[in-house]
């Protein structure tokens, strides 16, 4: 079965929690493990927070989240129309941050990479950024309780 959803929200810090919960609720039909739900929530949180802080510099703007479920595969795109990035590769390096003043750890993309199965970032200065992530759900090794 194929299922999809699209969510458009304002880039306020207040909506970061909502975005996590909305995506988590959407994927429950696949019976994901608690671990997988946490993985997806963390990835959503990182991408949306990036849009709020970096793309729109906490002045608000539009964030679009698109999720596509096909079989066990979640395909998710988180798009903003903010300031974009000159150097995506550098932004994705662990511990790299442009906002040490806000105590950002520079671990956002590293977390998305670690908790999802695939990560791609498209960005154009002045146009915006799209973070594309994939994750296979319901893939946790089956544990035999009798063993």
């Amino acid at each position, binding site marked *: 079965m194929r299922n999809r959803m699209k969510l458009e929200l304002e880039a306020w810090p207040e909506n970061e929690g909502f975005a996590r919960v909305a995506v988590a609720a959407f994927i429950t039909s696949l019976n994901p493990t608690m671990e997988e739900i946490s993985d997806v929530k963390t990835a959503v949180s990182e991408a949306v927070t990036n849009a709020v802080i970096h793309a729109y510099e906490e002045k608000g703007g539009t964030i679009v989240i698109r999720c596509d479920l096909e079989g066990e595969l979640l395909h998710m795109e988180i798009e903003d129309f903010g300031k974009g990035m000159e150097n995506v590769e550098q932004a994705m390096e662990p511990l790299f941050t442009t906002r040490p003043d*806000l105590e950002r750890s520079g671990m956002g993309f590293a977390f998305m990479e670690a908790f999802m199965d695939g990560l791609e970032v498209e960005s154009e200065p002045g146009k915006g950024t799209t973070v594309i992530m994939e994750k296979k759900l319901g893939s946790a090794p089956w544990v035999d309780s009798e063993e």
Partner: protein
Amino acid sequence: MEEAYKVIDHYLMIRLPEEIDHRSSSEISRRADHLILDKDVSHVVFDFSDTKFMDSSGIGVLAGRYRKISCFGGKVYVIHADSRIRRILKMSGLTNLVEIME
């Protein structure tokens, strides 16, 4: 209700909220720094008992407080962190800076 921020013998004890994200982390850092300056705090203990979610914003809170107090010989402790929180701390290299207790 039990106070989430307590200072006992130069130890600042912080009972962290259920969700540590961009929104809650700036408030935690602000309140912690105020007490560190005001109440002669040497060490900070982060209690994760209630925490069910943390993203990379939490790393900034711990690393930031570490930077503030370590130059005066202070230590940062983490207590009651579940396996996921521990994994996140490890991924960020924080396990080399903070003491993780059972």
